[in-house]
């Protein structure tokens, strides 16, 4: 069975039906991307998977356990990490404290080796580890948010718009890191408006339109799909 299995979830904001019968799967070792325009419901789906929002009906299974009614902090400890849109680093805490928070569900003894791993992956964070993270640049904050999520030793990493607001060079760098993580065995569920970038690294993709999945295929197929080209890749 798939690592993450989402079966016909429906999410409402008040009376607004934001997610309509969405189903998808993520297999172990894959990079899967959800693409779609602003407001299509991509972030809502991730928030529902990580337990911040609730689905009406439907089911979400992670590693064969139902998680659609579990508290968010329980879901994290099962090995599912979520890097939220806009990064949301704890701005008043230092870089290292942020990383420690990422390891909140892990035993104390794992923090030091975890920090070492993250610092090896993101040398920039090591240079700034005593700095208050609100003073970091956008790209550095994205690295911190990703490093923080990796501190929980996740089996599945969900990234929400990691390229948002970043300079093109930094976007390249972030995607290189995603590829590296993937090579190291982390499964990735990636939400992006930058469809070109996302599809070029993804094994499979789902195209979302106003709360519904309208198209699915592997990364290459979607990159070459006429409708996708027209809607998301600028012709």
């Amino acid at each position, binding site marked *: 069975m798939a690592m993450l299995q989402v079966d016909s979830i429906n999410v409402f904001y008040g009376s607004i039906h934001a997610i309509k019968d969405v189903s998808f799967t993520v297999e172990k070792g894959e990079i899967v991307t959800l693409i779609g325009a602003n407001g299509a419901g991509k972030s809502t789906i991730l928030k529902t998977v990580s337990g911040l929002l609730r689905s009406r009906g439907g089911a979400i299974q992670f590693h064969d356990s139902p998680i659609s009614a579990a508290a968010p902090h329980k879901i994290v400890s099962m090995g599912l990490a*979520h890097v939220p849109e806009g990064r949301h680093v*704890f701005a*008043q*805490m230092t870089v290292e404290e942020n990383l420690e*928070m990422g390891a909140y569900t892990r035993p104390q003894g794992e923090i030091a080796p975890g920090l070492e791993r993250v610092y090896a992956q993101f040398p920039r964070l090591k240079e700034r580890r005593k700095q208050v993270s609100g003073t970091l640049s956008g790209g550095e904050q994205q690295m911190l948010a990703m490093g923080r999520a990796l501190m929980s030793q996740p089996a599945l990493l969900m990234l929400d718009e990691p390229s948002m607001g970043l300079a093109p060079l930094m976007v390249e760098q972030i995607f290189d890191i995603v590829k590296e993580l993937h090579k190291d065995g982390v499964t990735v569920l990636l939400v992006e408006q930058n469809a070109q970038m996302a599809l070029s690294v993804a094994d499979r993709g789902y195209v979302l339109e106003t709360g519904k999945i309208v198209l699915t295929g592997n990364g290459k197929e979607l990159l070459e799909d006429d409708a996708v080209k027209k809607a998301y890749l600028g012709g």
Partner: protein
Amino acid sequence: MLLLSQIINGLQLGSIYALVALGYSMVYGIIMLLNFAHGDIIMVGGYVAMLTIAAGVHPLLAVVLAVLACVLLGVVIDKVAYAPLRSSPRISLLITAIGVSFLLENLAQNIWGANARPFPNSAIIKGATLNIGGVHIGTTAIATIVVSILSMVVLTFLVQKTKRGKAMRAVSEDMGTAQLMGINVNSTITFTFAVGSALAGIGSILYCCTYPQVSPTMGSMLGLKAFVAAVLGGIGSIPGAMVGGFAIGMAEVLVRAVGLSDWTDGVVFAILIVVLLFRPTGLMGRPMTEKV
């Protein structure tokens, strides 16, 4: 010399305000609630200490029991009155807090009577005056200042260095993201109420040793002034609450020292108005930004 002893008085009063202000600020920092029942927790602490000592319990044990009673009360108030309103508008929470405050004051009046009763302060701190280089300092003043500062040092360590404390700061900064770290937000909020109420309990004993009587409404004025201290320091800021507490204590003592005793409360609330008009984030508060 007179100035020095006035400064000691200011520190004594200010350290009590600081302890109480910390409870306001920590709770506000984490759930954006002005916990108006906080002052009444102090009152309950005073009664518990007085009644247990009167029942023959060893004074030190009585103090511990009083602090524990405050912790328990703070946590129960959160669970019963505030937790069900977590996703309600903040105004509902505020009105509930005022309701809890009235409830506690009136319950106390029903159970223990409306009259002020003497507090056995000498059982806890032996009253004496030390003459240090010509300055007369009471043992109560010294004990109050020392205990308060120790409590604040412990609190600072707890918040800055421990896992629980860091989780508290994380929840206070961004509740949703804290959940994504695997932090149990509800237990962190409970912990915050417990710590804030413990400080109120300590403050309660120190206050009762300084002004040795207890009454059902004793917490309301003390609570309000500590609230002013928290606002002055920057509500939500822990160092701010400490600074604000000492500042308000000093201000009161100075106003009294220049012979305007009748004006002390007026001056304290004038400070509140001035802060709210010209610097609503207080001395050390963060700029107020609405989270989206």
